[in-house]
Structures are given as structure tokens and as C-alpha cells.
């Protein structure tokens, strides 16, 4: 039957093509043994899974740029004890499922560790894989559930400060200024949700009451409905947990409806974009943030000052723009890993152990002190309070 043979060929082609393309994508599956026996000047392979496009691209892009810059710089100066770094960056398009597949590819290529992902959801989705494959992972996202419960996160670390750290800075400010009726507005996503959980827990038994709680979508174009409720609630201060552009739109609306109470934002707005997009309405806004945005204003004897200034100088030179805290998270993740690699060599288990032993590591987001119970390593002293004054960040503390 001639028809069957030509027909069979057509189907066969498609099927073979598909399996073949998948196998090409998988490249050569490297087993554990090959990884361990790296000698001489063999490159150290590391992988990064970042949210470069999609919803969290404003986080992933500066992270990618920072990583590329750091690898270039490190390799130009000879790498780690002569071993150059071979970095593969993959874009998960802010999609959890794609992130899972991306991390599996990277692990199979024999990467020693994974940097990523940029946001909490995409990071959480990769955890099962790195735990079962026993590959160290350093996330740049904020959710505390990324590194907790510690009994199920031996291989997972993160560099972004926990919301709890930022919230406690805000609470201190509130107490100092006798503000105990607050309105809390937050983005209706993982970031905002975690902020809400943190502040609800923090104000328990503190004498501070949340008299108004409002949400809004990342895509919302106008938050005046929520703000009108705040106006009638009797709140003495408004705290907002969001990132631009919605954070900027809200700030503009805030001014429009004539709310005269202080406006406190989260570290999510710690970049110049927020101020620009708010078109003048951002003046007076207070927020807790890592020291990067006010690096020039912190005292010279601060252990982070040198590291911050050198990062700003390098980044500005290469990309003609100031770096922001997201890039900072990537800087920290990369250098924590390099630090561990120097001591442990190309061995995943040893790298994991060294990461856990990291003490007094001076990074962009703070000074890291890791323990087996704390895979984030940052405390309240890693953040400062700043205020926007005439379109610029000013340290207040």
C-alpha cells in the first residue's frame, strides 16, 4: 500500500524531528563524575535562570546585566584560581513551568550551582528539582518561604532581604513618630501578599492598628477608589507595598486626592524609575531600602561603602545607568557563590557547605551571616530609611 508508506514517512519525520530537537536541547547529559574531576584550567560552569521577559522582567533584566558584567570582570582577572567562569543564562519568561525545565537543562549540563530565579513564584517552582538533584541554588527573590522550612531547604539560599527586615524598620519609624493608625495598600500578587503577612504579624501586640487595608492589581491604572477609602478611615499614615509602575500611579493619585498624611513605600520602589514615573508626586515619600541608593551618603566607616561604590562605578561605566537593588541581589548571589567556589572547588556538596558557613560577607544588600537555620543571612542593619527629596534619595536615620 503505497499510501501507507508515504504517509508513514510523514508522521515518522515529525515524530523523529521532535524527539531529536528535544535531545539536542538536552545536549550531552553530564553525570556527577565529570563535574567532580575538573582539573587544570577547566571552566567552572554555573547557570542562571532569570525572569528576563514577562511580568517580572524589571527584576530579571538588571540581574542579567549585573551577572554578565561580573563574569566578564572576573574572567578578565583570571577567574577563580585560574579557572574561568562559564555562565549560562536562561530566560524563564516569568513562567514557573518554563523555569522548572530550564533548571533541569542546566543541571544536566553539569552546572555547579544555579542562580535564580528573580521572583518568588518562579523560585519556589524550582526548589523540588534542586533539592532532589542536590544542586545549590541562590535565589534573588524575597519570599521567606523560599528558604523556610530549613529542614526542606538544605540546598536553597536567597540574597534579597526578607520583608520582615524592612517592616521592622518601618515599625521603628512609626513608633518614634507616634503613628499608630495605619492604612496598608498592597499589590495583589506574591510580593504584596508577603508584605501584608509581614506587617500583620509585626503589628500584633504593638499598639499599632491597621484601620484600612486595600489591594490593587499590578495593571491597574487608577487607585483613587482605594485611596478614597483611606481618606475616610482616619489613618495617620499610609504604607504601600508595590513596585512601579503601579506604585508610581498610586503616588500620583495620592497627591491628587489631597491626602495629607505621610506616605511610606517598600523597598520595591528603590529605583529611579519610581520617582520619574510619579512625575513629581514622589517627594516626601519614605522607604526602607538597602544602602545602594544612598551609597554616597553613608558614613565612610560603614563596611559596605567600598563595595557599593565600586559596583556603582562599574555598572554606570558599562551600562550608562545607575544600578538598582535587583542588580544588587544578583551581585550578592554571584559573589557569594564565587566565595564558596574559591574554598570548595567544583563540588556541589562542598559549595553548599561553604555557602552555609559564610560569615561577615560584605555584599550590596547587606552583610551576610549564614547559618544552617538561616539561609538568607541578613538582618535589620542591612536596611536604612531614606526619603525622596527633590527627586533624589536622601538618607534619614
Amino acid at each position, binding site marked *: 500500500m503505497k499510501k501507507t508508506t508515504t504517509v508513514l514517512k510523514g508522521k515518522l519525520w515529525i515524530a523523529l524531528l521532535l524527539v531529536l530537537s528535544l535531545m539536542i536541547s538536552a545536549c550531552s547529559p553530564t553525570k556527577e563524575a565529570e563535574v567532580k574531576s575538573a582539573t587544570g584550567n577547566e571552566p567552572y560552569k554555573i547557570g542562571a535562570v532569570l525572569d528576563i521577559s514577562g511580568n517580572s522582567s524589571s527584576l530579571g533584566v538588571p540581574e542579567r546585566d549585573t551577572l554578565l558584567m561580573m563574569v566578564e570582570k572576573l574572567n578578565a582577572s583570571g577567574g577563580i584560581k585560574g579557572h574561568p567562569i562559564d555562565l549560562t543564562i536562561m530566560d524563564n519568561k516569568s513562567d514557573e513551568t518554563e523555569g522548572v525545565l530550564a533548571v533541569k537543562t542546566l543541571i544536566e549540563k553539569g552546572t555547579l550551582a544555579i542562580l535564580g530565579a528573580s521572583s518568588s513564584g518562579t523560585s519556589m517552582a524550582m526548589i523540588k528539582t534542586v533539592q532532589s538533584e542536590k544542586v545549590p541554588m541562590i535565589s534573588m527573590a524575597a519570599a521567606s518561604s523560599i528558604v523556610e522550612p530549613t529542614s526542606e531547604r538544605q540546598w536553597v539560599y536567597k540574597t534579597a532581604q526578607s520583608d520582615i527586615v524592612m517592616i521592622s524598620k518601618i515599625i521603628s519609624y512609626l513608633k518614634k513618630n507616634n503613628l499608630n493608625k495605619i492604612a496598608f495598600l498592597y499589590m*495583589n500578587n506574591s510580593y504584596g501578599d508577603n508584605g501584608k503577612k509581614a506587617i500583620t504579624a509585626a503589628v500584633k501586640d504593638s499598639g499599632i492598628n491597621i484601620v484600612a487595608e486595600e489591594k490593587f492589581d499590578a495593571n491597574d*491604572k*487608577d487607585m*483613587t*477608589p482605594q485611596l478614597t477609602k483611606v*481618606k*475616610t478611615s482616619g489613618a495617620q499614615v499610609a504604607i504601600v507595598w508595590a513596585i512601579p509602575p503601579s506604585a508610581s500611579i498610586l503616588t500620583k493619585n495620592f497627591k491628587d486626592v489631597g491626602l495629607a498624611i505621610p506616605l511610606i513605600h517598600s523597598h520595591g520602589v528603590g529605583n529611579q524609575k519610581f520617582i520619574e*514615573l510619579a512625575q513629581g508626586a514622589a517627594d516626601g515619600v519614605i522607604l526602607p531600602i538597602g544602602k545602594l541608593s544612598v551609597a554616597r551618603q553613608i558614613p565612610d566607616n560603614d563596611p559596605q561603602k567600598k563595595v557599593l561604590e565600586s559596583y556603582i562605578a562599574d555598572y554606570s561605566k558599562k551600562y550608562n545607568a545607575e544600578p538598582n537593588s535587583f542588580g544588587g541581589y544578583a551581585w550578592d548571589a554571584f559573589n557569594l557563590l564565587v566565595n564558596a567556589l574559591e574554598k570548595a572547588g567544583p563540588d556541589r556538596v562542598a559549595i553548599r557547605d561553604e555557602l552555609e558557613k559564610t560569615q561577615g560577607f560584605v555584599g550590596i544588600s547587606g552583610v551576610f551571616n549564614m547559618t544552617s537555620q538561616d539561609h538568607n543571612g541578613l538582618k535589620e542593619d542591612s536596611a536604612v530609611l531614606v526619603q525622596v527629596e527633590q527627586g533624589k534619595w536622601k538618607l534619614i536615620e
Partner: protein
Amino acid sequence: MGEQLLQLLFTGLTLGSIYSIIALTLVTTFNVTGILNLAQGEFVVIGALLAVSLQGTGMPMIAVFIVSVILVAILGGLLERLTINRARGASSLSMLIITIGLSISLRGLALLIWGTDTYSLPAFSKGGSLLMGGAALNPQSIWIFALVAVTLAGLYGFFEHTFWGKVVKASVYNQTGARLQGINLNTISFLAFVAAGGLGAAAGVSIGPITMVTYDMGFMLGVKGFVAAAIGGLSNVGGAVIGGILLGILESFSSGLISSGLKDAISMIILLGVLLFRPQGIIGAIRERKI
């Protein structure tokens, strides 16, 4: 309380103006070509992004507006020739998927050229919000309504009083008859997409000052515009505009009076209600005419 309600109304009108203008372009294309153009949102975004770049060169806003409109109109026409025209005769589902594919590609293009940044556009008139009765109204929304009104008037004038308008109407009502009269349906489809592109850009430049511009906002705008059009009844442009305003006010009031998390849910429930019990839309029954 009264002040709060007034503020919610104003916000609703601002949102509504945005939804109306998008719904208007969707319905026009749909009625003229029978294709639901899911890439309409991307036309809006690309128009806005072009405006951002042009404005950065120091061009006056009027010129920026006109140039953006022309460029995206050309883009619309080009895409129609390359894709829709080639696929003539395909099922409506295939056409829909072609527009989905176009919207995906355009989004990728926008990402490539303009990156993931959020940009702002200057409002058409200086000065902040207008305070009326204790509530603030964004003056840009007045501009948007003006644009909507001008477009509606233009469409009415075109279809009622010009030769070509009548030609298009004829082809919509009876394709075969129109063909027999020697009317070239391909040209009409082409012109419809040119118009969709141009109107989309006009919408983008107008709403940009309120919404800020990001490469991926096209999708949500398209969906909201679509919902607005359905509420108003997909069959006529006036309905689309009213549907947009209703949707905006609905969202604003749900947000302010009930809960902001559920505001989209409320719009969806209303939409489902309309579809199940009154599919011609709220306005559709009153006026059966399509254009």
C-alpha cells in the same frame, strides 16, 4: 460620602474613556471585516511607545501624535497584506489565531525595541487634576473623550455621507451583492486594518499619560476593550463606547465600595450575565444597525 461617590464616578469616567476608545476600534474592525482583531491592544501600545521615542527627540506633541498615527496605520496595512489577505477563506477560528500570533509577535518586537522599562508620556494639557466638588478629575480623560467623540462623528460622517462609506456599509450587509457590484472586498479589509492601526496609535498616545507605557500592557487593554465591547453589544460602535464607560464605572465603584480584589470578578460576572441573558448587549437591542 457624597464626595467619595463623586470621586469614584470621576475615576470611573477616566477608566471608561480608556476602555471606550479601545472597544471602539475593536468593534469597527469586527463589523467591517468580520475579524476580531486581538492584536488591537498591541497597535495601541506600539503607538504609545513610538510616541515616547519621538517625543524624546524634542518633537512637539502634535507632530508626535500625527507621526505615530501614520506609522502604525502603515503597520496595520502591512500586516493585513502579509497575513490576513494571504489567509483569506480560512475559518474564523484560524483568523482569530492569526491575530493572536500577530499580537504575540508585536509584543516581542516591542520588547526588543523598547525593553522592559515603563515610560511616561506628557499629558496634552498642562496642570494637574481638576478639582470639582471635592473630587479630582484627570483632565487627560477629557481629551480622550474628545477623541472618542471626534472618532464617532468621523465614522458617522464617513458611513452616512460619503460614497466610500456607503460602499463599505454595502459590503458589510451583503458581501456577495457587493462583490457583484464590483466592490473589491480585499481593499476594504486592507483599509479597515489601516484604520485600526491609526486609531490604535491615537488611543495609545492619548491614554499613555494616564496609564504609563509598558511593552506588555497591550494584552490587558485588549481584553478589557473586548469585554467592554461585549457588554455594549458587539454589533455597533455607539454600544462599544457606552460599554467602555459602563465597565470603567463598574470597576471603579466595585473597587471603592466592595473590594478591589474582586472588581475584575464583578465585571466578569456582569459579562457572563449579559452573555447568558442578553447576548445582543445592553445597547444592541435598541439599535440593530451595525455601523
